[in-house]
């Protein structure tokens, strides 16, 4: 399964899970009701598979994680935030193509 390696985070496990990861984690803030989130999800599954070991992908459904969403000032869906050792290092508002995402990630891998 392609999505077996994608973490699902909520308010309860967000900080703990990110702190434990050695590789950078790209967190995708999304919701059921967001159309552009669907296209992005497909691309992130591909990246999770191709870059396994270099980068971890995590997903936050904003309806399940209201405080995390507010804390990270997410104002638009989807928004991707890259974390390294639990700290946010880059914020990418809006859905983007695969090449653009990989280019941004290459700085942190």
């Amino acid at each position: 399964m392609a999505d077996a390696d994608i973490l699902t985070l909520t308010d309860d496990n967000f900080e703990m899970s990110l702190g434990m990861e050695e590789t950078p984690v790209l967190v995708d803030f999304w919701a059921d009701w967001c159309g552009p989130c669907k296209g992005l999800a497909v691309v992130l599954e591909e990246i999770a598979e191709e870059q396994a070991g270099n980068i971890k992908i995590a997903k936050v459904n904003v309806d399940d994680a209201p405080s995390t969403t507010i804390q990270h000032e997410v104002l638009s869906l989807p928004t991707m935030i890259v974390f390294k050792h639990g700290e946010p290092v880059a914020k990418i508002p809006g859905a983007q193509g695969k090449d653009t995402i990989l280019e941004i990630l290459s700085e942190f891998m």
Partner: protein
Amino acid sequence: MADTPVREVVIIGSGPAGLTAAIYTARAGLEPLVLEGEPSSTSDQPGGQLMLTTEVENYPGFPEGVMGPELMMHFKAQAERFGAEVKTVKASKVDLSERPFKVWVGKDVDAEPTYLAKSVIVSTGAQSLMLGLDREVELIGHGLSTCATCDGFFFRDQEIAVVGGGDSALEEAMFLSRFASKIYLLVRRDELRASKIMQDRAMANEKIEIMWNTSLVEYVGDTKIEKVKIQNNVDESISDLDVTGVFIAIGHKPSTALFEGQLDMKDNGYLKTVPGRTATNIEGVFASGDVQDDYYRQAITAAGSGCQAALEAERWLEEQE
């Protein structure tokens, strides 16, 4: 590459037009390749413009209405069921000057073409216009939005502005009134372009205040929108409007840059086709959907013209044999 296979048909775009063309050409056994575009938060994305809307009420076959993204997932599944191959990429260059036609994907447009095709169906649709103000691109996602259904949620109990006076502006304003405490609808002139039914609904909504003859001229705020400057177009006076969010819905332009100098266009940038048909000035290249329609611009008409393009391509390919 000498061994790049020549496809019967390559379809550029995956809105209602492109995916309908895919359903028809796939059922005809032409094994179409669909270049569906890349994720983005504008309408220029896999699935097209309907990915940005909620309920579609006028697409026949759904008496209770259907969510735009869900409708487009169905289109795609139906095309794939008959063998259409869908790739999440954008065409970056085309050469339609000789057959087989050449299509490139990705940044390296000097390399060998990525795909070769006997026929091409162009259904690249239309994308939203922006105001073109300073810092517009960097403020997207920081209070400025191109997608009300994506971002409305974050403006609960806040005052926001919607720019535009057509159906889509009013639809956004109505949708946003579920969240925001107040919506200023900034209308450039002293009338709305929107249909009567939408005007009546918007006027009856007490959260929406229409500001006539008003243009947004500047975004104010360092890291996110804190307020905006607006101009009264009658006396040209400038004033502040305290809003934390701005949604732009001022219309669309056809996505035709890729075909400049190759396909005939009208003055407004829409592709020209033979009247009543989808054939373009180049034999074997067909155009369907909003990219060639500056009049109807509906999901059902786009789907209808995607069907026309598929049937025309199919017949044209038969004639070539």
